[in-house]
């Protein structure tokens, strides 16, 4: 009886999940038949002329997510190491929850903060600094007037990904058998040598899976990105130019979408996002499977 109820609950969740997929696919159908596969790389988004393409938004999503991962992965792994092996227990018990609480900051609050506090700061200080230092790279072009850019959006997404990667890698490092680290220490290895020689090699696949899970969060973030990405058209070389992301495009356009084809194109964007999301999830699972980290990674709370 109770078992039957439990199975029904699981079935209900499954129905919801299939419902999501079914809705998204059927909503996207008109746009798929009209724009075809080239929708993915067309960069125009002009609803008035029915010239719609996902290129700009996909590029923005890719840039923001990549930037977040490039910054958050080393930082997150370092925090995981600090919390699991280096910090005194009492410090770790305070710092650990603080890091996790960064993930609890709602994206709307982070977005507002990003718009009013972070973007002007980035525009005034970070962009000129990076331009003067690394301006020979086209991605660090001249600063823009507002600070609303893919760069700022990427920074904001970093704030959301960092606690996920930190908490997961901390839990991973805690699963390393103490006999292994003790043995290495007994052989005279320094802290860093223990970490590099024992801890990281035994957990590397888990760390990769944690990064991919962080990526999943970064890809789907709509509201915070929507606040600071600046709604730019086309693909620009400079990170400091305004852009758009897939999820932010949906949040931005859907409530005001008028024509059926524009609505359908937004469902098409959602379909692309869904496919990418499921692919990253499958990737994380298959990497995690190589090492028994499924349990730890299952505990991700975004």
């Amino acid at each position, binding site marked *: 009886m109770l078992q039957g109820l*439990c199975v029904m609950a699981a079935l209900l*969740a499954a129905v919801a999940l299939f419902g999501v997929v079914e809705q998204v696919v059927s909503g996207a159908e008109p746009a798929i038949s009209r724009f075809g596969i080239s929708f993915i790389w067309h960069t125009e988004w002009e609803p008035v002329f029915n010239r719609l393409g996902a290129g700009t938004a996909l590029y923005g999503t890719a840039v923001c997510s990549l930037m977040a991962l490039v910054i958050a992965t080393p930082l997150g792994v*370092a*925090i995981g190491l*600090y919390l699991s092996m280096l910090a005194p227990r009492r410090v770790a018990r305070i710092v650990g929850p*603080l890091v996790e609480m960064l993930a609890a900051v709602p994206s709307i609050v982070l977005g507002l903060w990003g718009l009013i506090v972070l973007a002007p700061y980035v525009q005034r200080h970070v962009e000129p600094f990076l331009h003067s230092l690394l301006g020979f790279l086209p991605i660090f072009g001249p600063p823009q007037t507002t600070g609303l850019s893919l760069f700022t959006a990427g920074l904001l997404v970093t704030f959301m990904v960092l606690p996920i990667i930190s908490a997961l890698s901390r839990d991973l490092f805690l699963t390393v058998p103490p006999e*292994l680290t003790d*043995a290495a220490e007994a052989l*005279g290895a320094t802290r860093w040598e223990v970490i590099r020689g024992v801890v990281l090699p035994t957990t590397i696949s888990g760390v990769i899976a944690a990064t991919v899970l962080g990526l999943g969060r970064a890809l789907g973030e709509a509201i915070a990105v929507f606040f600071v990405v600046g709604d730019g058209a086309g693909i620009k070389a400079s990170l400091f130019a305004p852009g758009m992301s897939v999820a932010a495009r949906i949040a931005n356009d859907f409530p005001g979408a008028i024509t059926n084809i524009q609505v359908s194109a937004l469902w098409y964007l959602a379909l692309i996002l869904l496919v990418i999301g499921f692919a990253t999830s499958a990737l994380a699972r298959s990497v995690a499977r190589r090492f028994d980290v499924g349990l730890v990674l299952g505990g991700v709370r975004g």
Partner: protein
Amino acid sequence: MSELVDGLVPDPYAFDPTAPLRASGNLRRRQLVSRMLVLGAVAAAVIAVASLLLVTYGVASHGASALSFAFVFHNASGFAGGGIAAELVGTAAIVVVGALIAVPVGILIAIYLSEFAGPRSRLGQGVRVMLDLMQGLPTIIVGLFVFGLLVNHHHTSGFAGAVALSIVMLPLIARSSYEVLRLVPGGLRDAADALGVARWRSVLGVILPAALPGIVTGVILALARAAGETAPLLLCSDVFNAGQTTINVFGVGMPNIPILILESSEQASPQGLDRAWGAAFALLGLILLANIGARMLLARSRKRLGT
């Protein structure tokens, strides 16, 4: 921690610890490298904590001036002034209705995974994959789904928002409850079985009560997460009649805090921005307090379970 989910047994001794541990022979250099990297790890932790403090400080310093007794307990008045009482009530109603859906379903799924599905059960594996996928759903897509299901051809409502939030909360609640249920000592189950107690009775009478504080913690964290979700509400519970207190979740639109912040911040008037900051401060404060409370509860129950 080491109990296996997927039945894969990792062999901790398979990897050869001698290989990468060749010393350079220069102890001073080795220790210097080590110390630098430890410092780097400390710096990373400082950066993370500093960013939390920066965001909290930013929100608090902008929002504190707006926050007052009247702001919390009065409704909006005029174009961009007044309080946020209606939105607070609306957010609470949406989250509570969402929880009424997500909590029972989530806990039942967790009970199924921990008590009825064996570690090698095919269905159990499938349910786990499904929870993973649900948790990975971008919330904006959840919003689109509920929009198509309940809003399109009808109207936006608090109930639609609640359904969307329940989909966001469900995997979080199922996952955290499952983890807590697994921590319940096997001896309790064995004792109940030995007394000839039926499975459903031992689950309801013995196992759930033992795991309750942990489950409550997970539920609070999920509620805190849902309270700040904006993307689904943008599509499901957008409002034009802001500032009217209502708990009728089936009515047209329902004022709520996240949408208030979004719309006030787009008004481009100093008053609107003040309102947005005040509401953001209230929301962030509530969520952080809920987080701290939930964690304290968890720590206490962990101590009691002896894990």
